[in-house]
């Protein structure tokens, strides 16, 4: 009797795990978030020190360089993400480009078109008008939308991260006008540090397996 019960429990566990694998996909793993968060904090601090103190990173960070620095952070974070996904795929014997990953990429891709075109515009002519804050608002807003586009099959933590980015993007222009400080010129840099740095670090801390999950990980589809 107990043997049948434990067999049945085992079957239900396997079914549950398969269903979760098919319905829940975490587009950003905790290690990726940690790397992206640390890199962003490092980049934000370096730019801030370069602008406000005698500390110099070796070259002048003007509007265009600002974009290049953050694109470099993005590139390294994407490479780290690919590395961690590949490592996990090898560990579990699953394909690198899994069906769930394809589903996530299909959902995310449309949200990246506008930030892509705005970035190209910024690098061509937009930087002449010191439009960094506009660029940051677009990046954070559409990054948030991209995360939210996976809402149907993403864990709740990822949707919360998406909302944090989206709401911050909405608040950035409003707060920038409302709060005039000595560091107003650094608002774009500080906003990038807070969002891509701090938010990612908080997300990594909350979702890191083994350290305990701070909020329940239930798919919105459930």
């Amino acid at each position, binding site marked *: 009797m107990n043997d049948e019960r434990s067999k049945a429990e085992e079957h239900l566990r396997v079914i549950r795990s398969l*269903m979760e694998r098919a319905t829940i996909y975490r587009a950003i793993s905790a290690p990726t978030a940690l790397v992206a968060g640390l890199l962003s904090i490092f980049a934000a601090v370096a730019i801030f020190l370069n602008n406000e103190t005698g500390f110099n990173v070796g070259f002048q960070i003007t509007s265009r360089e600002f974009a290049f620095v953050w694109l470099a952070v993005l590139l390294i974070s994407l490479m780290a993400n690919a590395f961690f996904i590949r490592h996990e795929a090898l560990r579990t*014997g699953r*394909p690198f480009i899994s069906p769930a990953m394809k589903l996530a990429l299909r959902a995310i891709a449309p949200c990246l078109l506008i930030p892509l075109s705005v970035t190209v515009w910024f690098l061509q002519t937009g930087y002449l008008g010191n439009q960094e804050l506009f660029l940051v608002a677009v990046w954070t807003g559409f990054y948030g939308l991209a995360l939210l586009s996976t809402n149907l099959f993403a864990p709740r933590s990822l949707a919360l991260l998406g909302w944090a980015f989206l709401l911050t993007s909405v608040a950035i222009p409003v707060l920038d006008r409302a709060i005039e400080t000595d560091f107003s010129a650094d608002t774009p840099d500080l906003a990038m540090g807070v969002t891509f740095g701090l938010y990612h670090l908080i997300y990594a801390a909350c979702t890191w397996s083994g350290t305990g999950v701070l909020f329940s990980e239930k798919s919105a589809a459930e």
Partner: protein
Amino acid sequence: MLNFDKLDKAIHEKGRLAIMTLLAARPSWPFQDLKAELGMSDGNLITHLRTLHKLGFVAVTKEVRVRPHTSYSLTAKGRVAFKDYLDVLDQIVRTGKK
């Protein structure tokens, strides 16, 4: 009394149970995605899918886009059979706990 004999043998087989579970999780699965997710060989997967199709549990959709594209989904009968299967497993667990 409920026991494993009450379970649908067609679904209870390990490979077919995995297929039914994935089909229950999403509306439709392309063949290649099913294969990648389950790590089965083409022949093995086709055999299981044929068995489930013959039983009326699985529907097959064939489309010709750039290349032939076959996708699989659960029929209403298959969904009921899968739910019944889960109910029996659940009952076995509950009975054992009493």
